[in-house]
């Protein structure tokens, strides 16, 4: 069973990861937009193979946290250590190379490119062919492309999407587009993957399948996964550690059971006298 072990920054990670450096160590993270404080004193740690959840009412600042973690925004306060490295000042693509990938709340695919090409873009930094090779289609170009194609198909098969390889990404059904985004993020070989509302628009059976797939990804690739989700069955079903955000601040942190019965959480979602 996943026993949680306390860490210096009062975080919790699964016991199996306790002796390893946390993949993500966030301390006192905060950002102000003009006069508005969107996120404040955000402390969170992720074990190397942990599935964590970030929940909270709409507008609580969850996506803002993701944007901070991927350096889309520059924090006003606090620090982010990704695999032990301070990411302050890095650009988004550098942070991705370091090991953090994400999906987006409103799907962001390369809609005019094929499914396979979308994944190949994710493989960009892991494909060995320099500019000269690209321009001449020689000097190792074909070998690199072949390897990229094989790897991309391999990744697509995790979600049984390999037959859609040549379809245009923009013409896929909604659920397939969401899955493709996850595959593309996986292709960047991250140490931690951030999924922003991956179950949005899915029915219960699709959600159950997604839960299976997320677990499968974690087990196969041995990476950490952090979710923003509103679907409580998904969150309570697979997350090992959950943080609850309201008005930009963490109001509760713990295991699913602890969170479920936390009065502050219930009040945040349902208001006073709720439940």
């Amino acid at each position, binding site marked *: 069973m996943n026993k949680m072990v306390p860490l210096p920054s009062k975080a919790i990670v699964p016991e199996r990861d306790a002796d390893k450096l946390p993949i993500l160590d966030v301390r006192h993270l905060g950002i102000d937009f003009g006069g508005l404080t969107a996120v404040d004193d955000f402390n969170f740690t992720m074990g190397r193979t942990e599935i964590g959840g970030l929940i909270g009412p709409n507008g609580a600042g969850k996506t803002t946290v993701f944007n901070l973690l*991927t350096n*889309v925004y520059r924090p006003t306060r606090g620090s982010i250590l990704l695999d032990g490295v301070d990411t302050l000042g890095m*650009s*988004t*693509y550098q942070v*991705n*190379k370091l090991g953090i*990938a*994400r999906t*987006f709340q409103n799907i*962001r*695919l*390369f*809609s*005019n*490119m*094929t499914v396979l*090409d979308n994944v*190949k*873009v*994710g493989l*960009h*930094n892991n*494909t060995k*062919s320099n*500019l000269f*090779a*690209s*321009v*001449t*289609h020689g000097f190792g*170009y074909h070998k*690199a*492309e072949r390897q*990229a194609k094989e790897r991309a198909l391999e990744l697509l098969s995790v979600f049984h999407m390999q037959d*859609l390889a*040549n*379809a*245009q990404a923009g*013409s*896929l*059904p909604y659920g397939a587009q969401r899955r493709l985004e996850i595959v*593309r*993020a996986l*292709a*960047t070989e991250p140490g931690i993957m951030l999924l922003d509302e991956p179950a949005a628009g899915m029915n219960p059976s699709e959600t159950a399948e997604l839960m299976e797939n997320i677990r499968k990804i974690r087990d196969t690739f041995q990476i950490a996964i952090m979710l923003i989700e509103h679907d409580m069955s998904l969150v309570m079903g697979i997350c090992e550690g959950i943080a609850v955000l309201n008005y930009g601040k963490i109001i509760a942190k713990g295991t699913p059971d602890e969170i479920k019965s936390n009065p502050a959480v219930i009040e945040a979602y349902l208001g006073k006298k709720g439940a």
Partner: protein
Amino acid sequence: MERIKKKMKPLAGNLITLAIVCVLFAVVFILVETGHATRHMRAMLVPICINIILAVSLNLTVGFLGELTLGHAGFMSVGAYAGCLFSIAMKDILPMAARFPLAMLVGGLVAALFGVLIGIPVLRLHGDYLAIVTLAFGEIIRSVIINLEFTGGAAGLKGTPQDSTFVIAFAVVLITLLVIMNLVNSRHGRAITAIRDNRIAAEASGINVTYFRMLAFVIAAFFAGVAGVLYGHNLSILSASTFDYNKSIELLVIVVLGGMGSIRGSVISAIIITVLPEALRELADFRMLIYALVLIVMMLLNASPRFAALKGKLHYGALVDAIRNKANKEGKAHE
């Protein structure tokens, strides 16, 4: 549920384009050699090649990167002057066989250098701002060249050896097509197209957006410069006023007409736009008006769902499906 669209493999498309270009060259070459080409036709051959190179390189930024640059003519002029000055300086030192390719390389590299210098400030911007600033730079280049001594000033540059021939121009067209086609269908090309389709997702997928925007911009500038050298060695006087806003618009019209992101479209459209004004001499006064209408109409058509449906029916995937369906029906009929 919408039918899932399949895309044609890019390699096949590119081979078709190359085949078309080579066949056209062969046909024209034979016509010229056997004396069946009129003087008018022969005079258009190098300009057609020049416009193809310009259009395909502009398509790299407009169609594949998705950014409108209105200063392409500026890079053409910088390359032209650099290449021509080189040729004039080396006129008695190097034989044409060495001098002309070197001149083209010089022109291309100088244009590429300007691409880097201009790109550093410009590529921090997007969309409207980027377009206006590239326009501004194009105008600045033109004004500066006219006001310089060693470029011949307003009177123009004289004395460039007339080295441009159809065969050489065609060879350069082939090289341009190969380089750009290869680039677009490679890891680097995917990065560039990804930036066009969704810059934020591209960045999140590990792509150094600034580097790739610069790459597309500079490569486009290089080929514009090479085209400029070809142009400069095809005229007796090189004048900076040819490389003005009108020229940049004409190039944009070629790219838009041929389809942004379609190399084959740019080739065909470049040929049409170079040949048509000659063929429709009576309409010469209306040429600018027609270009303007082409731009507006093409954009309105692209936005209309009916046109998209029509294009969808003509799409490669749809044709394949249609043929397959017909074959299935016939197969079933025989059972």
